[in-house]
């Protein structure tokens, strides 16, 4: 039976795959899980499409979930991480962060038929989903790293319905997971065990848009790309932009305080969200949906919900300030000889380009090579000769000729000053897209090159690349260490690529990376959030007293701990009830 399943899996997967994993049985699957990192990437270019799960079952003990889609298989030549998302035998073999063997908290009840009937009364038949295939998709995260075993998916259509659901779950002590587009990278959007999934996707109305001030009020289930098109028609843009925009929902973006590519220009969501409406664990609806730019009355509670990853309340409506769309966009792709030049270039750019700078990304030589080798349609913009670092600069302004002049002057000055050794300036939108294609295609390309360990760290700019170099020394020839990221925000995406997952290599990486980051007072999660993956690592970036206060706030807002349990805060603190 095992070989049959094995051959079947092979047939569905490209034969060039190198990383194969064995299907394993886990009879105790329901009670505990192992968290592991499979190194999937989330970024298939600027838009990502949701994929259809294909579920095969062989007997009741084993579940193999294979998720092919035409696009996915076309993109995935090398790796076969498709095998992930299966039950794992409890043993010491783990791939990711040191084994976090979590046990299901016994205070949470299990769903019974009365509960299902009650939900059916609140939501109607159609929105109470127990269908295997749909549950399977909702239980698995975007990167196919984490899989829960929820038996119930609810799709409320209004805040009132969310409130009733939560009130009921609180009274029954049923754990819930709020879910949006399910594109998170730290396992925060999927159940760990059998939590009820509350998917906000049906609440996707745009409530109002003020054409003068650019204030958009919409429900939390609106997909970011749809919002971008909508405000685009009105001459505005969304203040955030990320690769997952085709699937991610604004409620989720806010709950994770998503960063993205435009943060250096428009700031974080803490600045752009003017108000929100959230539902607390006991069903109370908190209406903080102001559309005022300035409102200093009392404590500004909305900030608690922005970035709390669904653990303090479910965001149901959002009011966000959108900047006007500016017509002139210029992109330059530059080469620098060392990291110091990149830093100086950043300072110069902030000073000389000032108000028109809208993105500043850096890519190191190793990442660039991986992209050229593995990404379809990637073309080296610079004349062939390898440089050590590449920088992508984007400017957005209102006057085409003025911006271009300013950018050209800055670039020529930098070149004369020796900061830049070579570079190209995009002459039309297609060329600009091709430069962005290279930067955004890095995660995808790294995935094709083999197994990858991913880290998203905030480190002071001067020290950022030191970590990459230290990791190279530490790992030697056993792995390829790549660094790239939002240099403008001091955000490093450290990726370590190996032919296969190897615990020995992992032991070399963790907890060294976290300790190093902590030593330099950096953050172990710059923009991806904590979720399940880093829940027990929060102490690397926050003091014990701070975390203690966070736990108190959690206890205050969610005494039974039903909202997104096992995540965000360390298990030891959060499980007190």
């Amino acid at each position, binding site marked *: 039976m095992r070989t049959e399943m094995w051959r079947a899996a092979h047939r569905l997967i490209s034969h060039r795959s190198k990383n194969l994993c064995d299907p394993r049985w886990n009879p105790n699957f329901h009670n505990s899980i192992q968290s592991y990192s499979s190194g999937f990437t989330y970024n298939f270019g600027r838009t990502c499409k949701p994929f259809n799960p294909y579920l095969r079952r062989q007997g009741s003990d084993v579940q193999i979930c294979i998720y092919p889609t035409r696009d996915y298989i076309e993109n995935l030549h090398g790796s076969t991480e498709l095998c992930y998302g299966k039950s794992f035998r409890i043993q010491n073999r783990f791939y990711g962060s040191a084994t976090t063997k979590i046990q299901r908290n016994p205070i949470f009840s299990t769903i019974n038929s009365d509960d299902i009937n009650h939900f059916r009364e609140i939501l109607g038949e159609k929105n109470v989903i127990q269908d295997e295939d749909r549950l399977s998709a909702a239980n698995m995260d975007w990167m196919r790293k984490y899989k829960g075993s929820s038996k119930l998916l609810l799709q409320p259509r209004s805040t009132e319905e969310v409130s009733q659901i939560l009130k009921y779950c609180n009274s029954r002590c049923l754990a819930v997971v709020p879910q949006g587009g399910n594109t998170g990278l730290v396992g925060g959007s999927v159940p760990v065990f059998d939590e009820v999934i509350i998917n906000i996707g049906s609440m996707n109305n745009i409530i109002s848009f003020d054409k003068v001030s650019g204030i958009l009020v919409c429900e939390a289930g609106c997909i970011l790309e749809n919002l971008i098109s909508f405000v685009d028609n009105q001459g505005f843009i969304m203040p955030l932009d990320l690769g997952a925009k085709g699937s991610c929902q604004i409620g989720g973006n806010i709950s994770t305080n998503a960063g993205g590519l435009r943060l250096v220009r428009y700031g974080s969501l803490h600045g752009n969200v003017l108000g929100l409406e959230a539902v607390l664990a006991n069903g109370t609806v908190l209406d903080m949906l102001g559309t005022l730019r300035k409102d200093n009355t009392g404590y500004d509670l909305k900030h608690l919900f922005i970035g709390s990853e669904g653990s303090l309340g479910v965001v149901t409506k959002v009011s966000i300030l959108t900047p006007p769309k500016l017509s002139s966009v210029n992109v330059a792709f530059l080469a620098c000889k060392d990291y110091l030049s990149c830093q100086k270039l950043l300072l110069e750019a902030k000073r000389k380009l000032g108000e028109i700078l809208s993105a500043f990304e850096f890519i190191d030589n190793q990442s660039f090579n991986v992209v050229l080798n593995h990404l379809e349609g990637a073309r080296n913009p610079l004349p062939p000769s390898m440089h050590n670092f590449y920088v992508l600069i984007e400017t957005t302004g209102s006057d085409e000729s003025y911006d271009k002049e300013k950018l050209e002057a800055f670039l*020529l000055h930098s070149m004369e000053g020796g900061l830049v050794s070579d570079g190209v*300036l995009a002459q039309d*939108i*297609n060329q600009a897209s091709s430069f962005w294609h290279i930067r955004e295609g890095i995660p995808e390309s790294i995935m094709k090159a083999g197994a990858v360990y991913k880290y998203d760290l905030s480190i002071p700019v001067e020290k950022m690349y030191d970590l990459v170099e230290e990791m190279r020394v530490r790992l030697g020839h056993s792995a390829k260490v790549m660094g790239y990221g939002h240099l403008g925000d001091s955000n490093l995406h450290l990726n370590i690529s190996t032919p296969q997952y190897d615990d020995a290599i992992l032991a070399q990486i963790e907890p060294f990376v976290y300790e190093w980051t902590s030593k330099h007072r950096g953050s172990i999660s710059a923009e991806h959030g904590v979720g399940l993956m880093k829940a027990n690592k929060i102490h690397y970036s926050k003091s014990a007293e701070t975390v203690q206060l966070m736990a108190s706030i959690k206890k205050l807002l969610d005494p039974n701990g039903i909202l997104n349990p096992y995540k965000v805060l360390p298990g030891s603190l959060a499980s007190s009830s």
Partner: protein
Amino acid sequence: MKIMVAIKRVVDYAVKIRVKSDKSGVETSNVKMSMNPFCEIGLEEALRIKESGLASEVIAVSVGPSQCVDTLRTGLAMGADRAIHVEASATLYPLSVAKLLKALVDVEKPGLLILGKQAIDDDCNQTGQMVAGLLNWPQGTFASKVVLDKEKEVATVEREVDGGLETLCLDLPAVITTDLRLNQPRYATLPNIMKAKSKVIKKFTPQELNVDIKSDLEVVQVTEPPKRKAGVIVSSVDELIDQLKNEAHVI
């Protein structure tokens, strides 16, 4: 041998086109403009021929309002040696442009004139052919491969036509219009952008060239195509037949 490349400043390929509310044309104010993609390919081909040693100079030429200078600067940044700008504020149709190009050819006397096969704003696909007719030069249009033979003064052009690929042999001087698969244009590198600042752009007016640009065409109206109506889902085959017979009148 000199090569002259004609380039056109058009609305950027990636921009979503909107029709002006008075239906007189397409919205071009505050919209990103750039070099016509086919013209870019033409310029790239000219540069490659020069780099292979078969030509001495590449001259970029453009006809239009004063902002055309930006597009010419891009051409110079890609590697063209000089540029010529014919200033004309009115909308020019292919025949007028062809007459102007003929006048410039008479001035510069290039051995090869390269154009894009068509402009993405009007899709006329006429200028190259017209100018070849006016000059009485041989033409190789929709070129997907160009090979020059200096001694024999011949250009071998492979053309993409509906039936496949056609290979022509043209005596120089000749007119070639480029198709998409001819090459992949280079990017404008910073050192070249720097050099381009010192390159010359010569200005002409149609009067100086003795060309009458009065057009015998006038655009009366520009409208969007009618929006596609949503489809209707029918519940049974009978209903389908009924709809096809009585509403659509196709059976």
